[in-house]
């Protein structure tokens, strides 16, 4: 039931945005409208109230409207079903007669106040301020101040959810991918129109393939870079459709968007003489496209980490790929402007530092098993001792050597000093 009530409240809030853009929700069952700026447009408070009552009647809702100089006062008066109070001077008199239940304070606070013999808002207003704040909390005191207009009441304006949702139902069961693709294209065009209207971009889309007598197949496609272009959205949809195997023919196709963000344009360069034009496509789009067939963790960038242990000296720059490449890539491309952005020199690049192999094995392999057990290794250089990781409980103490196998491969092997036998392991390959 509260869910239904909440939905009704949101729906009404959407409607009231035609009166004023500054609507705030007071769940479970109240709305506060700042109408001060709309009075002239609507021709006075009475016509606003008339329009609201008419809409409430149409929705079969009963409600009480009350106007007051401050938002909290209006809310409290309306909760008690009082008349409008339009003068600030008599506001405290009117508020004083209200019972404490209108304030929406927690039950514990109200019970405490009742035990102290305080039944109305006026009783609270008469108390010494610091004592009241100490007993029931600063928030209640702030509420009282806000209701009287002695303290700013900053409210978060209600912003309607602008998710797009649309369905196309087929007249019969459809299994042909071409038909589904065409209908999907139509849905995406509808979405693009909606996005254009709102000047918005979409981050992800959820396609539902509805079947007869079985649960729908839901496919979520992430647009790594938010976009408003139907071509890009359709592109990903079509390439996902290619690999999708549907369990049954489709009776309806639905499209629901994820979060809709305000449209962000690309800034052009300040200096027109810049030789290179930023590319129209960003790496994020390629990532979005590859994600159709690869999972998100299979696509990553590379980064350096400050660690001496070889396996910990690199990182998958995953977040960087999705966000900063998408946006950061464009300014990067303009020649020398990217000069200062380079990472600082790391340990691996310091002069005189031992070389590192281009391939690293995810887990060191025992040398006996690594090369099929055939042939012997010839050590070419080394050792380089790496001892680290004791602070993480992963104590490593290894002597690294560069070795060459009988088949001409250059390998990076180490001798584990932690084990008593001094086992040899293969950790990298010089590609």
């Amino acid at each position, binding site marked *: 039931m509260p869910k239904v009530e909440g939905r009704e409240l949101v729906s009404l809030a959407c409607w009231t945005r035609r009166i004023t853009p500054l609507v705030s929700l007071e769940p479970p069952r109240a709305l506060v409208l700042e109408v001060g700026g709309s009075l002239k447009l609507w021709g006075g408070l009475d016509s606003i109230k008339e329009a609201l009552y008419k809409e409430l009647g149409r929705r079969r809702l009963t409600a009480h409207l009350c106007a007051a100089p401050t938002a909290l006062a209006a809310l409290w008066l309306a909760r008690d079903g009082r008349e409008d109070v339009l003068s600030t001077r008599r506001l405290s008199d009117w508020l004083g007669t209200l019972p404490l239940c209108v304030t929406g304070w927690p039950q514990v606070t109200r019970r405490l106040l009742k035990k102290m013999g305080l039944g109305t808002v006026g009783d609270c207003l008469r108390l010494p301020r610091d004592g009241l704040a100490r007993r029931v909390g600063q928030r209640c005191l702030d509420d009282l101040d806000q209701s009287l207009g002695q303290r700013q009441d900053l409210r978060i304006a209600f912003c309607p959810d602008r998710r797009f949702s649309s369905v196309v139902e087929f007249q019969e069961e459809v299994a042909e991918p071409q038909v589904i693709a065409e209908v999907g294209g139509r849905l995406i065009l509808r979405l693009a129109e909606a996005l254009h209207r709102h000047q918005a971009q979409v981050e992800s889309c959820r396609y539902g393939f509805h079947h007869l007598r079985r649960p729908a197949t839901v496919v979520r496609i992430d647009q790594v870079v938010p976009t408003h272009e139907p071509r890009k959205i359709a592109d990903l949809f079509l390439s996902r459709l290619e690999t999708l195997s549907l369990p049954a023919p489709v009776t309806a196709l639905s499209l629901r968007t994820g979060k809709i963000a305000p449209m962000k344009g690309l800034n052009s360069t300040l200096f027109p003489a810049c030789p*290179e034009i930023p*590319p129209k*496509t*960003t*790496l994020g*789009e*390629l*990532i979005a*496209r*590859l994600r159709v*067939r*690869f999972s998100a963790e*299979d*696509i*990553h*960038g*590379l*980064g*350096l980490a400050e660690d001496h242990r*070889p396996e910990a*000296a*690199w*990182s998958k720059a995953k977040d*960087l*790929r999705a966000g900063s*490449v998408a946006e950061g890539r464009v300014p990067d*491309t*303009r*020649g020398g402007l*990217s*000069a*200062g*952005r*380079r990472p*600082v020199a*790391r*340990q*691996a*690049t310091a*002069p005189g530092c031992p*070389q*590192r*192999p*281009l*391939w*690293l*094995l*995810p887990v060191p392999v025992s040398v006996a098993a690594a090369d099929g057990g055939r042939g012997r290794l010839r050590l*070419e*250089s080394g050792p380089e001792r790496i001892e680290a990781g004791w602070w993480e409980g992963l104590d490593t103490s290894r002597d690294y050597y*560069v070795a060459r*196998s009988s088949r*001409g*491969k*250059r*390998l990076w092997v180490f001798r584990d000093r932690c084990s008593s036998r001094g086992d040899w392991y293969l950790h*990298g*390959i*010089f*590609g």
Partner: protein
Amino acid sequence: MTGPDVSPRFVAVARAERTADPGGRKRVEQPIDHLLVWRAGENCASRRTCPTGFKALDRHLPGGGWPATGLTEILTEHCGIGELSLLMPALARLGEGGGTGCIVWIAPPHIPYAPALHSRGIDLDRVLVVRDRTGARGNRDTLWAMEQALRFGSCAAVLAWARSVDQVPLRRLQLAAEAGQCWAVLFRPPDASRQRSPAVLRMRLTAIGGQTRIEILKCRGGRPGTVSIRFEDRHPGDVEHGRRTAGPHRDVPDR
């Protein structure tokens, strides 16, 4: 009317004749031009190339370097014989000087090790790795990803590792590389040399002693040949070719 202060308005551009006997060459050339015959080595002059960083190899390749657009096939038995070191100077050069392209690694056999790449002068911000862990559908996803990256248009190089590739996908990759103006490098096992290929350049790598033998099997606009390179402990590109002048942002020390 001719004034004495007329500045020159024409510049003549002529191809220098390199043969010892220009007259003889001309005699042969004329009927060939007339017959619209395509000569090997003719259309590769305009092809974009990227120096390999190894002088010996540059001399063998038409245009003096890797073909910057098109498919390059490298056939190796196993990794670890210098197949990556061979590419490093060129890959570093691609990202240099405000180049826009990124380098995509598709289905690499091991982890490309970031500190080593960084020390070879590769901008890690431009590297994207796509792992193909499933392998259930053979190479299909690898090749699909490679084609997507090639057609994408803002990649400088796409490296991919595949086992067996048919004729048709190879052709698609070559066309995609040309469409996207991108350098595609496909690593394949050496038995693929028996298969025909539309690639611009095919080479087979074998390790002999401490050296890597590079057999150029096919080279559009050039001739097959063999080059041997020794990959030293230090960066071979630096030793042999000499690094280009380091900009203020380059933190790779000259060695």
